[in-house]
């Protein structure tokens, strides 16, 4: 089980701050989370970056039980 961390608007759309998800890659974690949390969450994911252990990751990156995957929506910057 990898830990999925849901931040800011992603947390709000999912309704939870974190989740345990059993998947082999970043893409798979996100796909399963999208099924679980539904359309508002999918919309946020579409504009977000995904980090693994604080580093930006591609969908095909493998993940294991000790990895933390974070959905990082855009910020207001400025």
């Amino acid at each position: 089980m990898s830990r999925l961390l849901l931040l800011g608007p992603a947390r709000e759309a999912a309704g939870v701050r974190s989740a345990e998800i059993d998947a082999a890659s970043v893409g798979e974690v996100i796909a399963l989370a999208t099924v679980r949390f539904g359309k508002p969450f999918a919309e946020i994911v579409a504009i977000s970056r995904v980090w693994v252990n604080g580093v930006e990751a591609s969908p095909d990156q493998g993940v294991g039980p000790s990895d933390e995957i974070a959905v990082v929506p855009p910020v207001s910057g400025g």
Partner: protein
Amino acid sequence: MDEASEWVAVSAQPLAPDELAAWATRRDCGAVVTFCGTARTTSTFEHEIIELDYETDVDLAESRIRAVTARARERWPEVRAIAVHHRIGTVLVREPAVVVVVSSPHRREAFEAAQFCIDAVKRTVPMWKREVWQGGSAWSEQSEDVVDVGDLAP
């Protein structure tokens, strides 16, 4: 660089800019620059803001802030002490949400490094802000991807 020259914190505690500045003031430094980012009433919304509500993951945010201060050290090796504190949770109008303090022997480096740190924190640290007004609230306009400090223009 001694251990005590760096002070990074993300917490729900009210910020104490004067305490940070006193901590940063060193016998061999002639300059201490303090930046306070304060909650203000105006926003992109048509409402008068009464408070802001900040949200992040503390560990992730602190580690991203430390990447910013490390980069500032590389660019301004003369700098002595750097403090970056970010508050989360509710911040009332006029209260600081973020404080950056930089000390150095001469003032130019302190100004430049302080401005770099706050600019870089805004762009590289995952931190979301809800704006709260009488009877409603919404996320601030969220338009910029969080980038790595290495991706910022030098």
